[in-house]
């Protein structure tokens, strides 16, 4: 209410109590005026701002001229989160100028001093020109702790470097000197804990820059990062320099800070020296809440320094380059590669992965300067290899699986996927734990302290890393150490040792180290055979595990033997309808899917399905897995509708049991889509790929191979010319997401870059950007060939498949680039990669044929056959494809004799080696057609006719290579037969065949295939030649004109 009214009101109300009235009136006025006063002033509006104001009340308590202890304050020379730095004069015992740091906090100064005292001796031991001495500590009159240090005049290192426009190399040398100083302190047992540019001061001596680190020992004494994280220190964190704080310090969990925290800070320093800004934007960090700040530092992967430079805006980038006396491009190039790796090695979240010592870091920077290979690269990436092999075991596995995954993209038998991929590490460790617990119980009964201790040791090592579910490298180390101890320490406890051995084997298997796993499963089998006898369940159990490991090693025959023996034992023990029997059958069926094609494995899968439904009901994850396996069998047998039904059933079950956002749901969607695509590109397949991609995008990190594979398969059916803005944006974002993280396997990022490049490579978009992306992709691949981890085989397969789909869709050039990159990235690989390489060459050859590069095609097919013949049975499906392709390439380069030779050889093999009950090889029509065309070419029309007839007969009988996108459609055989008949003078029969074939091919051409067009031209040629030969120039001319 207005003042007048209020006065009137007061008068009436308090007329009987004038004293109280007056006082309350005064209060009322005072309160109002106070409120008004603050209202007009600008006020801090957030808690962070308020905290900063509060902070001011802690600083600036001393004045110049005052004396503190033996020191006289002369001049304030600095101010920071900790308090104020004074230049002071020491009076006694010697007169000298010193720096005095008065800590602002009202923390318990006795404790600070006590902590300093414990450090004092160690601090006194430090004697290094790169370290400022700390002389003394005490408390001011008002109880604030202070420290007295060597007075260093100079400029913070980052500013010094920028001001003097220091080039990268000089910066590195200066940085090395900082590392050496830090190393000196570390050797004396002193950790800095608060390394940052303002604590590293550069001065010039005779024109040479020398860095000196100040504040050693202060952070520890003030306890600003120690366990007693009072609310006060939380506030402290707001005004500190979180950008330089290591994740473990940020956690404040009481985890002991050690020298590796300093290594982290050195990494941040190096980052800033190189890229012009720290890995995490300090302004951004200061704006965020403490919780958010912690999360960022603990979890987010900063961009690589080189990417950070590239991401700067033009103006900034030029400036960052200029102060390094380099162009921006030269700068990014200098950082890319080794320097990126060195910095990121320091910035590992897990400190066990950082450089062990500051001198190790310095040595690596020296190696970079001397153009020697740096250790950061192989050392920190080796572990990633195991990781990626593990993730993609299924795509890698057995020989024939390559055919399947390559040509159809199916992920075989995904139950194992569910179990082996999803919670892999956690499960391994749970298993470790469970087994160890069981063994521990046993050994406790035996009162064997030694064994118990052993268990405990092992688990205490494995626990934390496994709980985080991220640290396979650490797990591998622990497992190796355990394996060594197992051999030496548990000699007298064979049963316990065997249990552990088996567990170890499984962990090795899950980590993708099959060789190590196999060594152990083999021992376990031998032990159990001796201990429990030939017909024991124990033996069967270990045989199954052994068999699975063998399958991973592609030792099919042995795997079959082990699983077969296990199956026989289990059936004898439990009858036929038992869950363990079903599990064994399932594994065997998977083996057969890869090795023998779908027929036999399908029968076994059906048996498994019956048992499991009986055992677990119709709604169980194992049932879903079996359905998925059946879907794969059907799909391989080109029974697409049935496959779709199986997959859909499995999918519905998975969705219900696992929820929608689950990797297994995505994989099943992916299988469904791949299967549908065998009928040619379809909107349904695309939609399923899209959903799989969407789920994987949510639940997997962008470097996960499964995600990249789905992306490739999805994009394979979308012609670049039709990709809309949305797709381009999606890819851009995907590439950006990948870039935000440290690459597990750099080469795995090549496909996304190539995809994006293809979309951008149009005049109206960004052809220059596309060229850059392609070069980046090439660099990534070349890098992986040199010494990096190899490309993921699943991804490489998908790259080939992408090429194949593009080829079938008529976008040969687009596919060729991807396929070439895939083949290139597999060069010089291990035995495992060669299977994929074979297929890659094969696809490459077909594409080269399609582009008229028949000479290249010959080379590609030969390369493919070379590997094929060494690895696979002679009647293998890939062989037929390769041989027919090679035959065509030979013929088209004018080497008819060679063409005939390889084709006839293939036919011989097919007839000779066919197992009595095996079906006709699906590639037979293709080879027959190709041979027929070769024969036509040299006018052996009679035999040619036989070949074509046989090819037509087989195809009509259901032997078809590709169900829809037919490289050798029936029409091709018809056309060839037409030519052969015409050659024999049987024109009446030839004419309708030729015309019909052309009509069919033109349909094909219209629907999908650019390759169809190529074939149609050949058919047309044949017709023209036919009418010419018959002396019917009018018809010939008519067809010729349509040929043109």
């Amino acid at each position, binding site marked *: 209410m207005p003042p007048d009214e209020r006065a009137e009101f007061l008068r009436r109300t308090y007329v009987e109590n004038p004293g109280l009235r007056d006082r309350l009136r005064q209060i009322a006025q005072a309160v109002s005026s*106070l409120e008004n006063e603050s209202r007009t002033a*600008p*006020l801090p509006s957030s808690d962070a701002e308020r905290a900063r104001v509060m902070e001011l009340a802690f600083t600036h308590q001393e004045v110049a001229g005052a004396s503190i202890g033996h020191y006289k304050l002369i001049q304030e020379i600095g101010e920071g989160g900790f308090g104020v730095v004074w230049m002071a004069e020491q009076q006694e015992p010697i007169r000298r100028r010193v720096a005095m740091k008065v800590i602002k906090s009202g923390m318990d100064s006795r404790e600070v001093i006590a902590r300093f005292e414990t450090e004092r001796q160690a601090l006194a031991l430090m004697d290094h020109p790169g370290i400022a001495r700390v002389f003394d500590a005490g408390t001011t009159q*008002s109880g604030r702790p202070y420290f007295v240090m060597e007075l260093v005049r100079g400029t913070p290192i980052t500013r010094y470097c920028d001001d003097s426009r220091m080039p990268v190399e000089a910066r590195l040398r200066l940085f090395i000197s900082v590392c050496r100083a830090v190393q000196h302190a570390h050797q004396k047992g002193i950790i800095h804990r608060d390394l940052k540019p303002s604590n590293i001061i550069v001065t010039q001596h005779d024109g040479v820059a020398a860095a000196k680190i100040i504040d050693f020992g202060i952070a520890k004494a003030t306890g600003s990062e120690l366990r007693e994280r009072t*609310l006060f220190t939380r506030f402290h964190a707001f005004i500190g320099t979180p950008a330089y704080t290591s994740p473990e310090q940020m956690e404040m969990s009481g985890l002991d800070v050690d020298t590796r925290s300093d290594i982290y800070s050195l990494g941040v320093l190096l980052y800033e020296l190189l890229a012009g800004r720290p890995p995490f934007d300090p302004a951004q960090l*200061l704006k965020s809440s403490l919780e958010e700040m912690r999360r960022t530092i603990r979890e987010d992967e900063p961009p690589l320094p080189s990417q950070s430079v590239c991401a700067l805006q033009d103006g900034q980038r030029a400036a960052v380059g200029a102060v390094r006396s380099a162009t921006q491009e030269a700068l990014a190039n200098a950082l890319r590669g080794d320097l990126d790796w060195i910095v990121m090695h320091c910035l590992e979240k897990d400190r066990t992965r950082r450089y062990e010592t500051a001198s190790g870091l310095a040595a690596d920077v020296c190696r970079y300067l001397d153009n020697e290979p740096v250790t950061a690269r192989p050392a920190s990436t080796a572990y990633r290899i195991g990781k990626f092999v593990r993730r993609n075991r299924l795509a890698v596995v057995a020989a024939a699986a390559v055919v399947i995954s390559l040509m159809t993209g199916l992920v075989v038998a995904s139950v194992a996927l569910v179990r082996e991929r999803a919670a892999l590490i956690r499960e391994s460790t749970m298993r470790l734990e469970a087994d160890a617990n069981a063994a521990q119980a046993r050994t406790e009964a035996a009162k064997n302290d030694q064994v118990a201790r052993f268990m405990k040791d092992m688990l205490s090592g494995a626990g934390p890393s496994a709980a985080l579910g991220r640290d396979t490298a650490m797990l591998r180390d622990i497992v190796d150490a355990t394996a060594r101890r197992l051999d030496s320490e548990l000699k007298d406890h064979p049963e316990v040792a065997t249990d552990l051995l088996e567990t170890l084997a499984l962990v090795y298997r899950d980590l993708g180290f099959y060789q190590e796993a196999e060594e152990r499963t083999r021992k376990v089998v031998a032990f159990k055979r001796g201990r429990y006898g030939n017909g024991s369940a124990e033996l069967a159990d270990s045989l199954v595990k052994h068999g699975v490991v063998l399958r991973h090693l592609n030792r099919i025959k042995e795997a079959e033997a082990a699983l077969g023996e296990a199956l026989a034992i289990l059936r004898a023990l439990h009858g036929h309808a038992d869950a363990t029997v079903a599990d064994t059958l399932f594994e065997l069926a998977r083996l057969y899917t890869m090795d023998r094609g779908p027929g036999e494995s399908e029968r076994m899968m059906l048996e498994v399905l019956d048992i499991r439904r009986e055992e677990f009901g119709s709604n169980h994850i194992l049932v879903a897995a079996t359905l998925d396996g059946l879907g794969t069998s059907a799909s391989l047998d080109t029974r697409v509708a049935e496959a779709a039904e199986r997959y859909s059933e499995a999918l519905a079950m998975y969705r219900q049991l696992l929820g929608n956002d689950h990797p297994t749901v995505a994989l099943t969607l992916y299988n469904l889509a791949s299967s549908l695509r065998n009928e040619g590109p379809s909107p349904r397949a695309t939609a399923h790929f899209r959903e799989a991609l969407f789920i994987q995008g949510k639940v997997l990190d962008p470097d996960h191979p499964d995600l990249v594979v789905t992306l490739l398969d999805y994009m394979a059916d979308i012609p670049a010319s039709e990709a809309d803005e949305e797709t381009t944006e999606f890819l851009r974002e995907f590439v950006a997401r990948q870039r935000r993280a440290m690459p597990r396997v750099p080469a795995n990022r090549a496909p996304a870059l190539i995809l994006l490049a293809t979309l951008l490579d149009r005049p109206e978009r960004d052809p220059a950007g596309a060229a850059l992306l392609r070069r980046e992709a090439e660099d990534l691949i070349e890098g992986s060939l040199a010494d990096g981890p190899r490309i993921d085989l699943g991804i490489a397969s998908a790259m080939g498949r992408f090429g194949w789909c593009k080829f079938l869709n008529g976008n040969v050039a687009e596919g060729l680039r991807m396929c070439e990159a895939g083949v290139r990235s597999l060069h010089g690989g291990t035995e495992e990669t060669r299977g994929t390489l074979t297929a890659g060459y094969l696809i490459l050859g077909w594409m080269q044929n399609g582009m008229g590069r028949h000479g290249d095609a010959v080379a590609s097919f030969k390369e493919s056959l070379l590997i094929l013949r060494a690895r696979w049975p002679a009647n293998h499906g890939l062989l037929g494809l390769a041989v027919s392709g090679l035959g065509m390439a030979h013929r088209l380069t004018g080497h008819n004799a060679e063409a005939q030779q390889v084709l006839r050889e293939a036919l011989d093999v097919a007839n000779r080696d066919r197992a009595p009950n095996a079906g006709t090889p699906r590639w037979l029509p293709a080879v027959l057609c190709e041979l027929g065309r070769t024969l036509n070419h040299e006018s052996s029309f009679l035999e040619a006719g036989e070949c074509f007839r046989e090819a037509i007969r087989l195809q009509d009988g259901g032997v078809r290579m590709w169900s829809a996108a037919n490289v050798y459609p029936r029409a091709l055989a018809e056309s060839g037969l037409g030519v052969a008949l015409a050659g024999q003078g049987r024109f009446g029969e030839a004419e309708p065949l030729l015309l019909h074939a052309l009509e069919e091919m033109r349909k094909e051409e219209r629907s999908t295939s650019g390759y169809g067009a190529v074939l149609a031209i050949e058919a047309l040629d044949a017709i023209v030649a036919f009418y010419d030969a018959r002396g019917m120039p009018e018809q010939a001319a008519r067809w010729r004109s349509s040929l043109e």
Partner: protein
Amino acid sequence: MNVDEEWGISGERATRTGSFPETQWSIVLRSDASGDTRAHAALESLCLKYWYPLYTFVRRQGRDHHEAEDCTQEFFARLLSAEGLKRARPERGRFRSFLLSGMRNFLTSEWRRASAAKRGGGLATVPIGTVDFDERFCHEPRDTALTPEQAFDRSWALGMIDRAVGELRAEYVRSGRGELFDSLAPQIWGGGSGGTVPVDVLAARLEMTAQAYAVALHRARRRLGDRLRARVAETVADSKEIDAELRHLVAAINEATGPA
């Protein structure tokens, strides 16, 4: 103008010299006579500064604006009466805790009686224009995780800051440099990134060199720190407690920001 000279008139220097000056709260605490008018004045001056935090505390107890206003006023009226002064004893510690525990007792015992009496036709209280308080209270972000005590402490800390800023600004305005203060203010608490406008532009607007501006900023920060310290000093009985009280207030601010 000579800044140091001006510094002298701000009257805050005493807190910087080491010996602890008499504060309003120490005066109150040391007084044992109920007729001590100096102590009375000191208490009164203190109380009116902490109206709003107490009001917040009562509101947080679930009472509506009118009752909270009545209750707070009644509480102060009693506190400022002769008996009220006697309650302030050194063992009761800082002024903040003294007020809080006093209000807690008041709410559980006397207020119940007092409001009963009022319903029977007792005294109506003075509305002191605190409708604004209601508005302010209702507009504050309501972190339900805060207890009434935490809300009180937070409000207390915020009041302390706002008052120190307000006073400092008034001082600048008095010496004809309000504009300077308003330009400096966001820099003071901006954490190094006080705004989007570069410092040299800000300086140029005030026809200052960037260096002079930086010096002015440094001084303003110093003074605000001193002001705040002085405000806090006012409410403690011993200079040794200032830092502890400051830490408590910092914690009160951070409590709302997120759990430790």
